[in-house]
């Protein structure tokens, strides 16, 4: 039996309804995917080798880009903050200003964005190619849960590597600020580091830590989900990779704002 055609005046409502259902449906699938991944994270058997491989894939291989971007971010911060502080005669606060900016805000956000660009996109492409070449189906028909082999190790590795990458980013960033502030602009070493110890406390470090943990979960969740639900062929993988990077980057900034509002 064929459906009766809709009156032209009602078609916009049909379109809005269709979009709403599609959005709710994809949010539901996104959430269900995470719940399944969490189930695979907390229940045995644990895939230790896959977890170590993922730490290498997401963390170790991102080290160079983290070192480079961290150093130059610290140098830029050192220069710009110095030029501002010097107007008020407060250049002694350069060290804490650089450290607080990095530890609370820029370290977690920029490290997460860098790791997303390097490892997140590769994660989506790798899982996407496994999907279109039926490798994920092969796991499924072997009665092996692909979430346990591909997604759970990635999310766990994200939990471990993002805080580590952030810590490295913070340290080299502070060193970059030191190079500019102390070695280039002539601030004393004692002032740069001494004031830092006065102003930076554990709350600031924990704020950055919790942010990096949440970014680690968000990025690996989004990137594995997009890889798992890739479209057809090379174009589908390319589109999924782009979507994964864009969505991860947007969510990093959204999460950063809300966590910055909630955390002390």
């Amino acid at each position, binding site marked *: 039996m064929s459906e009766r055609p809709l009156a032209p005046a009602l078609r916009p409502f049909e379109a809005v309804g269709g979009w709403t259902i599609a959005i709710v449906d994809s949010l539901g699938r996104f959430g269900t995917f995470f719940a399944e991944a969490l189930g695979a994270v907390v229940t045995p058997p644990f895939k230790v080798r896959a977890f170590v491989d993922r730490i290498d894939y997401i963390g170790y291989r991102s080290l160079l880009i983290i070192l480079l971007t961290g150093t130059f971010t610290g140098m830029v911060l050192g220069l710009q903050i110095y030029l501002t502080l010097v107007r008020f005669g407060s250049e002694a606060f350069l060290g804490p200003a650089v450290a607080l900016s990095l530890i609370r805000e820029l370290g977690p956000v920029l490290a997460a964005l860098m790791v997303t660009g390097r490892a997140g996109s590769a994660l989506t492409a790798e899982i996407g*190619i*496994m999907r279109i*070449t*039926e*490798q994920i*189906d*092969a796991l*499924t*028909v*072997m*009665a*092996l849960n692909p979430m346990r082999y591909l997604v759970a190790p990635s999310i766990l590795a994200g939990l471990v590597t993002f805080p580590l990458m952030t810590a490295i980013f913070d340290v080299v960033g502070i060193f970059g600020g030191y190079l500019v502030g102390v070695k280039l602009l002539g601030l004393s070493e004692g002032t740069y580091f001494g004031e830092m110890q006065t102003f930076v406390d554990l709350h600031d470090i924990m704020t950055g830590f919790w942010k990096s943990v949440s970014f680690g979960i968000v990025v690996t969740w989004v990137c594995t989900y997009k890889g798992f639900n890739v479209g057809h062929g090379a174009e589908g993988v390319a589109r999924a990779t782009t979507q994964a990077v864009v969505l991860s980057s947007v969510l990093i900034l959204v999460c950063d704002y809300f966590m910055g509002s909630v955390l002390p």
Partner: protein
Amino acid sequence: MIKVEALTKSFGRQPVLRALSLEVPTGSITVIIGRSGGGKSVLLKHLIGLLRPDAGQVLVDGVEITSLRGRALDEIRRRYGVVFQGGALFDSMSCHDNVAFPLREKLRLPTAEIAKRVEAALAQVGLEGMGAKFPAEISGGMRKRVAIARALVTEPEIVFFDEPTTGLDPVLVRRFRFTAVVVSHEIPEIFEIADTVAMLHEGRIAEVGPPAAIQASPNRVVRQFIRGEPDNSEER
């Protein structure tokens, strides 16, 4: 026995399977033939539980599998071996590790036993000594044979072959006593291995029977397909 009853599946408004029914007797080799894009792979994906039908049933030894999920479905799948159209080998692993993978993960055998079985499985498909190669380093036909070795190494009860093209040696197939469902459009190679041939056309089984009966079939669709004549049904 695998029994398919009135299986129906559409993608959007495109019907692919239309109340398809088929029986695959235990221990037999049933080959499903039909034109490319005719729904053979879709039917196979229903048999292995990767797709759920809009209507109809798939019974494996009396167990209805289309409503099964999770561990219950995995119990059925443990009896399966599947050779995918492109091989579906894991690119990050060598051929040896690909074949060893189900033995390690499903059967959890000792390392020495796994190595022995893998070498034997690779030798059976004519790839002895090739275990160290990665899938990207070998030809498409060799990849398919590694996939066959991986599917057979666990000695499954039921094996599904999606367009095996090369590597499906009749002698090899007869050596194992499994129930096999082979999806193929390769004529006449499949007649050498089949006990039963089923012709899939427009979402239904157009004809089913022994290879000789199919080859002598008066059915126009079957004759056209076997002789490689163009399908004019769309022009009508």
